[in-house]
């Protein structure tokens, strides 16, 4: 395909600048986002073992919870799927918006308190959404929306640059002496292979960030102020179910509700059940999960009468809503990877890590092209050195910070309520330490150490589980159901350690004018570096 050379030159500039501006935040968003593919497993890894609640006991326990905690009378949620270790109740206090959970103590007593599960998973998700920025959620979401706009432009301009040589060079990964060529080939092949994923992530992130603003503008200019009417017309008139009512009634147990759903959707796999107005005559229950007949395997829900099991709303099931509804549900399934089950989660995990690699390699390539433009033998300029420090500091600080945050989950006392703040605090502390070191010592002297730091922090995850098995007196626990977390973290730590060694060798051989040179001045020798005498 022929594109005029001045257009290619234009989009090389556009690609560089949009990529540089948003690449660092996107690294954190993609790395943390890859981890959110396995929030259930992460929560299971982080959580101490608890007594199991039998699903048949649920109706009686619902009555006990409502009697003890009237604020739970609006809505109680219950995990029934296998992504969590056991069935468990949770609800929000509508007054304070605080979450509570109930589980059975060893003596059969009801144990009610703030949530001890999924705080880790939630803080990883918040780091993902904010791109690691330590600011409030609304501001960081707006910033990530702007980043998503630039990111879309960066993706398409990158595509325009490589279109001409696309077929010739796509799968040519020229490994060899020309390192710049190899990094560029790797950047291009990862970018092209994951192009649809990245385009969709850019569009959906901007949509999530700006949806309220866009709907406001559309209400004004498209619907002439009639948007509320149009939305209301779409929602079917609610039945009595779920409305407050007096008196008591017995709720159907989860198994009976799931059976009713399976009658209209054979093989339905339930994840959660939400009881609305539990224990009341007009109580409703929403059974949410996946319909195996739906190829996209996205999350859907069916609403039933909780006392009789009569189906009230099945429009979310596949082929029962409108095509528009199916499109909207498909958009969010594509962002969250909630279709296709475990294989797609692994695929999204790898695509997320690949995205993080794109932003890292893109920044390094920009530094390299500046060096070439300046001419050989010229010392790397300030902008190159600052960008090298920022890129390595954020990349390895993000990896180290998230690993520290995960590994810490088993070391904190299980009943401690300040945990949520500590998870994000540890992440930001790891990130800040790495950034500080990267700028204080310069890229050449810090990068191999930063990779070693990330490797050590990541190794702490499987080592924590190992310590739980070997030294029972520590009060740690092992989570056999979440062995995958230990295995993946172990493999990641090995890869980072290998990277640290290879980088140290490369830096020892870097010419003095390179941004990666350890000169001037003496710093700590990089780990594993061959000792070179002057």
């Amino acid at each position, binding site marked *: 395909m022929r594109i005029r050379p001045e257009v290619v030159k234009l989009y090389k500039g556009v690609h560089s600048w949009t990529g540089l501006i948003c690449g660092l935040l996107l690294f954190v968003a993609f790395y943390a986002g890859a981890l959110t593919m396995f929030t259930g497993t992460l929560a299971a890894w982080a959580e101490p073992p608890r007594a199991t609640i039998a699903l048949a006991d649920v109706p009686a326990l619902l009555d006990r919870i409502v009697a003890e905690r009237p604020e739970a009378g609006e809505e109680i949620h219950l995990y029934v799927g296998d992504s969590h270790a056991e069935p468990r109740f949770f609800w929000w206090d509508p007054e304070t918006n605080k979450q509570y959970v109930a589980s059975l103590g060893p003596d059969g007593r009801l144990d009610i308190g703030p949530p001890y599960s999924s705080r880790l998973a939630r803080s990883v998700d918040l780091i993902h959404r904010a791109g690691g920025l330590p600011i409030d959620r609304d501001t960081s979401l707006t910033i990530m929306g702007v980043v998503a706009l630039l990111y879309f*432009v960066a993706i398409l301009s990158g595509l325009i640059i490589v279109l001409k040589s696309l077929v010739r060079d796509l799968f040519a990964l020229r490994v060899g002496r020309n390192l710049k060529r190899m990094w560029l080939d790797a950047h291009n092949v990862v970018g092209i292979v994951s192009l649809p994923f990245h385009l969709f992530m850019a*569009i959906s992130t901007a949509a999530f960030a700006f949806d309220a603003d866009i709907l406001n503008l*559309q209400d004004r200019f498209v619907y002439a102020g009639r948007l509320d009417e149009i939305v209301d017309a779409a929602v079917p008139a609610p039945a009595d179910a779920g409305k407050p009512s007096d008196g008591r009634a017995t709720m159907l147990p989860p198994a009976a509700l799931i059976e009713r759903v399976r009658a209209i959707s054979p093989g339905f796999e339930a994840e959660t059940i939400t009881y609305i107005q539990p224990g009341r005559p007009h109580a409703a229950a929403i059974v949410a999960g996946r319909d195996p007949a739906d190829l996209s395997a996205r999350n859907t829900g069916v609403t039933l009468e909780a006392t009789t099991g009569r189906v009230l709303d099945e429009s979310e099931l596949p082929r029962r809503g409108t095509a528009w509804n199916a499109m909207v549900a498909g958009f969010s399934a594509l962002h969250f990877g909630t279709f296709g089950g475990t294989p797609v989660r692994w695929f999204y995990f790898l695509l997320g890590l690949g995205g993080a690699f794109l932003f890292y390699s893109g920044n390094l390539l920009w530094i390299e092209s500046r060096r070439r433009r300046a001419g050989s033998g010229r010392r790397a300029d300030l902008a190159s050195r600052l960008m090298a420090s920022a890129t390595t500091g954020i990349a390895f600080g993000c990896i180290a910070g998230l690993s520290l945050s995960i590994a810490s989950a088993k070391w904190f006392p299980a009943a401690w309520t300040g945990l949520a703040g500590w998870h994000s605090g540890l992440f930001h502390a790891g990130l800040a330490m790495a950034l500080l070191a990267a700028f204080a010592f310069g890229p050449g002297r810090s990068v191999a150490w930063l990779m070693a730091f990330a490797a050590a922090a990541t190794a702490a995850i499987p080592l924590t589980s190992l310590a739980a098995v070997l030294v029972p007196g520590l009060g740690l626990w092992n989570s056999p159901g979440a062995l995958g977390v230990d295995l993946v973290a172990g493999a990641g730590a090995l890869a980072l350690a290998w990277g640290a060694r290879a980088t140290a060798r490369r830096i020892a051989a870097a010419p003095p004018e390179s941004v990666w040179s350890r000169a001037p001045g003496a710093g700590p020798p990089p780990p594993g570096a061959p000792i070179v005498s002057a």
Partner: protein
Amino acid sequence: MNAPDLGRHWLAKALAGLLPGLAIAIGVSGLLVWAGPGAPEAPGKYMVAMWAVVLVWMLVLTFCFLFRSGWRAWAWLGGAAILVNAAMVACRAWL
């Protein structure tokens, strides 16, 4: 003819992509709402129209740099915004 330097006026072009670009995107989403398939009240259609704004806006923002100057970018994109929105208002009135 010499190849023009497309990198000049980048700020004016980017602003043209952002502002008239957003107006074009809103207009296109309005055409989908009023003239596209299905009734405007069809469940879920308003959310698809919201997503359409994002997609069109991003495409204009990507290709706004191809104009020969910032003035041309503003003239073409501004003109397109007026046309699309006029068509949308006409569809809303008569369809």
